[in-house]
């Protein structure tokens, strides 16, 4: 009568070992990505990378200075669209929304969040590139800005809702009107969380390539102003990675390393702050 029992015990051990192996596999992917990028990109990374324009085909050297600046400009534009709409939309949902309008807004936010990034590119192409007649930084920034909206709305709403009702009631009991209470008590209490949420949204769109392919388009040179096509880090990585030149691959690795480092640093810092914020608000 010993055998079924041992078999059950064995199954127990074997199955949990398998799930442990699954976990190990999933977790090691991040370290593989990071390690491989460091190995391949580390030695291609130098000062030129941050200060020089891309070298013409056939010449070695050069850098991605225009792509770095282009990414920064795109993110500024994206923030100008994504932050006001995302933040105030989130305030509406958490503090002012009735039932039906709030349901509609929440539903469309979810819908917008699920739109594939390439489709967002088509949208910006239709409303900006077709209207202006050419590719531009503006079009890319708008595409990224729209992508930011749903993420910013969600984090704003989540953190406003996490503010205890006693704070609101306290403010109202002291005679503050609702908007005063929201603006001077509720929003300041939730602000660290909201700001980190917006930073996460920025980090997310900073790595987006697909919506930029036919909006910001890419550029081998500097892009003055907002009306011309611009290079960006993710877009340049894509173009350099699929090119047949060994030298370009090296630079793609270096750019990948820079982009990944930026994204991971923001994410790690943000998640630590968020965790503390959640604890503070609940505690």
């Amino acid at each position, binding site marked *: 009568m010993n055998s079924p029992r041992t078999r059950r015990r064995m199954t127990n051990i074997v*199955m949990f070992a398998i799930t442990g192996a699954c976990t190990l596999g*999933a977790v090691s992917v991040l370290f593989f990505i990071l390690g491989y990028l460091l190995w391949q990109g580390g030695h291609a990374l130098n000062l030129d990378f941050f200060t020089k324009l891309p070298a013409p085909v056939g010449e070695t050297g050069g850098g991605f200075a225009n792509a770095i600046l282009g990414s920064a400009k795109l993110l500024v534009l994206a923030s100008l669209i994504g932050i006001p*709409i995302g933040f105030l*939309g989130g305030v509406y949902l958490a503090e002012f929304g009735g039932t039906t309008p709030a349901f509609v807004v929440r539903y*469309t936010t979810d819908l917008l969040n699920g739109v594939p990034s390439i489709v967002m590119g088509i949208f910006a192409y*239709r409303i900006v590139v077709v209207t202006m007649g050419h590719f531009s930084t503006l079009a890319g920034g708008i595409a990224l800005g729209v992508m930011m909206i749903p993420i910013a709305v969600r984090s704003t709403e989540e953190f406003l809702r996490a503010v205890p009702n006693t704070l609101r009631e306290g403010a109202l009991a002291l005679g503050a009107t609702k*908007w005063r209470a929201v603006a001077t008590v509720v929003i300041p209490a939730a602000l660290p969380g909201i700001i980190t949420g917006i930073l996460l949204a920025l980090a997310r769109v900073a790595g987006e390539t697909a919506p930029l392919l036919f909006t910001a388009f890419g550029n081998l040179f500097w892009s003055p102003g907002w009306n011309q096509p611009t290079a960006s880090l993710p877009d340049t990585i894509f173009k350099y990675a699929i090119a047949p030149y060994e030298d370009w691959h090296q630079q793609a690795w270096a750019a990948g390393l820079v982009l*990944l480092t930026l994204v991971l640093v923001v994410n790690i810092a943000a998640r630590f702050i968020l965790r503390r914020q959640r604890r503070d608000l609940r505690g």
Partner: protein
Amino acid sequence: MPLSSTVAANAGAPRRVRPLARRLQRGDQIAHLITLIFAATIFIVTALLFYELYTGALLTRQKFGWSFLSGTTWDPVALEFGALPFIYGTLVTSALALIIGVPLGVGAAIFLAELAPLGVSDGLAFIIELLAAVPSVIYGLLAIFTLVPFLRDYVAPLLQSTLGFLPLFQGQSYGVSLLAGGSILAIMVLPFIISISREVLLAVPREQREASLALGATQWETTWNVVVPYAKAGIIGSIFLALARALGETMAVTMVIGNDPRINLSVFAPGYSIAAAIANEFSEATGDMHISALIELGFVLFCITIAVNAVARLLILTTTRKSGAT
């Protein structure tokens, strides 16, 4: 501290209390209105997105109608546009992603929720969530130089020697293929499956586990026969969410799928996905008809992902409701 000014204003002028209150009430309405306008912008942007996709595809919709979806020829020069090869490529890569990703993801979620101590589980879940933040172009970059050669040199020969009798695993393998697209997608959707499934599993009430263990079941039997079935809807929801991600994923797939607009049965053959076709052809599209065809592809993709996302949300909602009630 900012409050004190309100209090002082109210207390200091007893006779003007009513007009002040009314004025402040109006402030309430203004604040409501301003936030409502911004919230309505979200609705308008989404509606505009739908409208632009719909009208942008007008030319091909009028010319091809529903046959756009079933046509197998994609020839921009002859103005012949059929989306089936792309739809096929998208569905096959996403299916492969789920076949590879779901067992791994659910396995890891079970480990994290049922076996690992809470501190370890939180730490590992944190690392896995970081994976979701890695930009897709970086997955693509790595896949080109590591995954593609690996599949070509090791996995393909192995599959051919063991399962080569199936048409799925026949033919020459060049590395860039439907399988490469599916594999990189599997890795990319893993964090979504793991973190949501883990949360759903953690939400299963403790009594369920205790009752099963008290009846003499082993821990694995408890997990597999009690906890997982209890969380089933939520886990399936996470899989649908992963599916929506896989369907719409562009860059990584574009870089490894091979970009060949033909329907090939073998997973070693190159293919093409909807998103990859838009990414590659849009900026070089010649003529309104070609642009229109690509926008219609985008519209098809939009509709599919919206539907899949809706199902996912519904499923996740039902599970969290259920465990919230008990």
